[in-house]
């Protein structure tokens, strides 16, 4: 039988698949690379068919499920949760429980923050520093919700708490939009994928950027001057999860995969590929040596305490954010 994964780039490394298929010779793994938005869009179009296991981030499940009914509840008894970091598990459960059913369990987690080449832009500290005219034409960001939230925090707002008051949230978004439009001049280009970003950063075309920590850690191994910097207002933390599409057909294989990749020796391989930490106990030790070093170079203990987990997105917010992003994209600078 075939196990069809809908997941992030790097979340299903060739080596892990090989080991999995060795262990379960009658299962054949097929991978489709995606991101949060596309996962939802795809599953919406298929009505939850076409894939057996998806890996959306913890904050993007509730609304999508509520509106489009694309997932089915997990049977937690089939998952070996003994090793899973309880805090993360609890957080994910809380975010993804609908009518008493749990829809997701955590897999990898990491943060979004800043990346800088410390030799060229040593004073990047806050989201807003990307708009520092000193680095005009030498910074980048991804034009997605992360930067909206980050910028809001940098402007002293708390967007997550405004989720309950959408009018308030709209005000924040408007402010953020103005700021980012003004910042457009400073940006070389909006990156669209990890690759874009890596190439620009490594070649020195940009010196600082908004980033996923995993990308920054990867680059650290190529060039130790490139560091991940948690913003002053706190890095935004995400947890990518396992969720089962409503019309998944290979449930058994899917559970096997979940259990398989949560094993410590597999986690090692997995983390080497994703650059992110698994949500199991002692995950940091399972990172490859160079990544551990990168994490150490990036985070202090306060930084970890200061992490801001993405809050569940209530219905409607995505639309507001989408409009704001369009506005920024369409605004002209020179």
């Amino acid at each position, binding site marked *: 039988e075939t196990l069809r994964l809908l997941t992030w780039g790097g979340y299903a490394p060739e080596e892990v698949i090989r080991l999995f298929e060795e262990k379960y010779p009658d299962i054949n793994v097929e991978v489709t690379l995606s991101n949060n*938005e*596309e996962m*939802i*869009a795809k599953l*919406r179009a298929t009505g939850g068919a076409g894939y057996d296991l998806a890996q959306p981030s913890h904050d993007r499940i509730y*609304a*999508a499920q*509520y*509106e*489009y009914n694309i997932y089915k509840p997990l049977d937690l008894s089939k998952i070996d949760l003994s090793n899973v970091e309880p805090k993360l598990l609890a957080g994910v459960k809380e975010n993804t429980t609908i009518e008493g059913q749990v829809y997701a369990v955590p897999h990898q987690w990491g943060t979004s923050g800043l990346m800088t080449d410390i030799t060229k832009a040593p004073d990047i500290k806050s989201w807003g520093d990307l708009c520092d005219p000193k680095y005009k034409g030498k910074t980048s960001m991804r*034009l997605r919700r992360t930067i909206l939230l980050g910028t809001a925090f940098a402007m002293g707002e708390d967007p997550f708490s405004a989720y309950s008051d959408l009018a308030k949230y709209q005000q924040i978004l408007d402010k953020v939009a103005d700021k980012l439009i003004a910042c*457009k001049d400073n*940006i*070389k*280009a*909006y990156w*669209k994928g990890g690759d874009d970003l890596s*190439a620009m950063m490594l*070649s*020195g*075309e940009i010196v600082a950027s908004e980033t996923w920590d995993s990308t920054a850690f990867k680059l650290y191994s190529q060039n130790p001057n490139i560091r991940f910097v948690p913003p002053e207002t706190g890095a935004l933390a995400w947890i990518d999860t396992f969720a089962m599409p409503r019309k998944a057909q290979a449930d058994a294989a899917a559970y096997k995969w979940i259990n398989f990749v949560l094993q410590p020796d597999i986690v090692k391989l997995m983390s080497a590929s994703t650059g992110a930490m698994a949500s199991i106990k002692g995950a940091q030790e399972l990172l490859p040596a160079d990544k551990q070093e990168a994490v150490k170079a990036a985070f202090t203990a306060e930084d970890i305490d200061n992490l801001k987990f993405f809050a569940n997105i209530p*219905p*409607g917010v*995505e*639309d507001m954010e*989408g409009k704001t992003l*369009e*506005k920024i*994209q*369409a*605004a*002209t*600078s020179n």
Partner: protein
Amino acid sequence: MRSQRDIRRLSLFLLLAPFALWIVLLVALPQLGMLFLSLREKIAPRVYEYGFANYVSFAGEPIYWNTLLRTATMSLLVTALALVIGFPVAYYIAKIAGRRSRGALFLLILIPLWVSDLIRAFGWILLLRETGVVSSLLQWSGLVSGGIEFLYTDATVVVGLVYTVILFMIVPLVSTLDGMDEAMIEAGYNLGGNGFTVLRRIIIPYAMPGIVSGCIVTFMLTAGSYLTPILLGGKNSSWFTAQIYDQFITRYNWEAGATFGVLLLAFTSVVVWIGLKLSGQSLSTTVARS
């Protein structure tokens, strides 16, 4: 012999069946479905209402129609450039190149057609990025000191699009010009015309069906292209198809996406219709022939 006529009847219906299935199921109904969807408005999750709200909100949002206008203008620009750049090439292939090199040149023209948009854009990225081949060559030759970024500007998008669509301009041009009797050009000179007169009064009017056909296809392809503007475009560039994609994929707003789709199709059709009227041609005399 009566059965003869019945056989013809039967074969007409047998042949009409696949055509009808194709046009109705894969072309007409989907477009109607999209039109229908565009008339549905999302009030709240799982709550919909029918009306023109999506169109109203399109009209009320300058970002959207600016993008549409921008896409159309740039597509027209690309079409014009493709015509200006492609015409001499088509003329050369059809009328000047020797018999043997003509075939070879035509093959060369076609080769980029056989690799995908993606690879072409990928190639341009490798060439044009700040640390890319062109910039490096310029630095190496000492013409410039620092790296130059050619990517992420509207000009790059235009170049990339011209590159992508120019074949569809050249091919119909070659095939119309090919049919032109050389004697007509010679007659043009013989009767006293100079190079410019012959071009303006004879060659271009003769090639008009090819020109219009090439322009229509080029314009539609450009307006409907997705990858090239996405991959080569800069932070300011927005393309209407990207908006459609965003509506569908990142905002799950199928209603708005469908509205955009209907509008793109309607708008580009109107542009083509105006072009046909202005040039006095029709779809069946141009695109159908080449």
